[in-house]
């Protein structure tokens, strides 16, 4: 295209940030890998012992499995709630669209601690759900909603719902409305139109949103610790406890690398799968 020196000259403004990234991002991550291969917290003896320790410890494996499950469950719940929301958005006029945009962006921009705090108020012993159910006479005694798995899934679903709704709305806006109309004109019911036309064509947006929600829910330290409570241990709090608590740096380093590989690996795998599927669709 152009001479190499000119091509790099254009990149000169990116140089300062590139240097910052090499020093404060790339090198530390390399150091993290190195540290995870030490045998003891005093950085003695190189060996893969930390990884073997993780793989042979049922507790650690369950923490990782629970964390992945949490991310998947929240992504699925968010998907079920976000599709109708996005469908209504696309079918609405300008004013309703603006109101919905505002409603979606507001929680996204409000602090995580604040959103989590709201769920403590809603799910707590004297919270809204318990107060309503008791006053309606549906429950005899307050249920334990806070510090429960279901409560955690519900709270995270709400907190991460915007991440799902935005890409989905984008996908639906780009969908040719005539396709759905044609299917309906040919006699398909609306359920059938949704499952055979709308869903397959907006699947890339749904998967993009789902992956964002998955990664965000799996790494949501604040919500996990405050809504999940001390008895539900997930990877973020496990890493925090092993590093800042026990100060077992090599094990914490190994944990955080295993967690990173798991999250990034699942995101990449599902992303690749969805691209493969949509390519197959175009081919047929």
């Amino acid at each position: 295209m152009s001479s190499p020196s000119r091509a790099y000259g254009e990149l000169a403004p990116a140089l300062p940030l590139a240097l910052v990234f090499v020093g404060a991002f790339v090198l530390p991550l390399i150091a993290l890998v190195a540290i995870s291969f030490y045998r003891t917290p005093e950085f003695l003896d190189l060996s893969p012992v930390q990884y073997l320790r993780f793989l042979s410890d049922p507790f650690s494996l369950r923490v990782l499995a629970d964390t992945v499950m949490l991310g998947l469950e929240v992504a699925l719940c968010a998907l079920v709630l976000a599709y109708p929301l996005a469908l209504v958005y696309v079918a609405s006029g300008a004013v309703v669209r603006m109101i919905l945009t505002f409603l979606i962006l507001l929680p996204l921009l409000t602090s995580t601690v604040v959103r989590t705090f709201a769920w403590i108020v809603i799910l707590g012993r004297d919270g809204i759900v318990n107060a309503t159910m008791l006053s309606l006479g549906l429950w005899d005694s307050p249920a334990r909603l806070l510090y429960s798995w279901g409560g955690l899934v519900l709270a995270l679903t709400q907190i991460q719902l915007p991440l799902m709704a935005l890409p989905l709305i984008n996908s639906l806006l780009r969908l040719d409305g005539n396709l759905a109309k044609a299917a309906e004109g040919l006699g398909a019911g609306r359920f059938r139109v949704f499952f055979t036309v709308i869903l397959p064509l907006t699947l890339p947006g749904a998967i993009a949103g789902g992956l964002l929600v998955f990664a965000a829910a799996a790494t949501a330290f604040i919500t996990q610790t405050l809504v999940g409570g001390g008895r539900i241990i997930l990877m973020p709090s496990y890493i925090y406890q092993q590093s800042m608590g026990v100060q077992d740096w090599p094990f914490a380093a190994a944990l955080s690398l295993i967690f990173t590989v798991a999250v990034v690996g699942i995101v990449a795998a599902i992303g690749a799968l969805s691209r493969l599927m949509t390519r197959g669709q175009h081919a047929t």
Partner: protein
Amino acid sequence: MQRDLGDRVYGGLVGALAAASTLLLLAPTLVVLIISLTSGMTLKFPPPGWSARWYIELFHSPEILAPALISLKVALCTTLLSAVLGSAAALGIFNSRSRLARLLDALFMSPMVLPAMAFSLSLLLVFNVIGLRLSFWTLVLGHTIVCVPFVIRMVGAAVQQLDPVLVTCSLSLGASRWYTFRRITLPLIRRGITAGSLVAFLSSFDNVPVSLFLADARTEVLPIKLWAILEGSLDVRVAAVSGVIVVLTLIGLVCAEALGGLSRSFGKTSS
């Protein structure tokens, strides 16, 4: 006949679920605002009475005000650094078609993909190894790495829409590079910079994973302090702090929408 029934069920189901998610999106914000005005000593809902006592209480709580001030300072410095470094980087990357530019783009975006806890732990370990003590500026450095991608995304979108002919014209008419940048490029990407900076500010102010590892007793930030308070007890003052944050976010959102359409920039970058 059967089709009609199915269609009505579909309409009802979509409507009901959409209503549920709208309620779900709105409820927590309302709940926080309502509970922050309670006159009671607990988070009991509905509040036994109304008062502004917890907001007044905040003024006598230096243990909350000090972290709030530090959070503001960290977020301001982070935003400034991210805006300058990120905008420059976006201009460089999106004006170049070389493979190195794509590589740099991927590198600068990777903090959005990697769990931030791993990155912050790695930075803490490196500071420990080279004997650098944690400080305000090490915290800002960590925040900048995770906040700068937002600026690059939004400025990048603006740079890609910029017609390169405008710059070529200005230069060929004898304007200097600096003059062209100031009078042509900068005004055309200003919205991207504003939107990116706003998001960078909010995400720094809200950041937990980096502060969890890189903040110490002298640089305790608001989200970590609130988390620590809530881990110990369900303090109603947190409701008042939350109320203040919600109202400030609302004001910021309205201003951003009025200035340049934040929702539009969001729509573009999230696709």
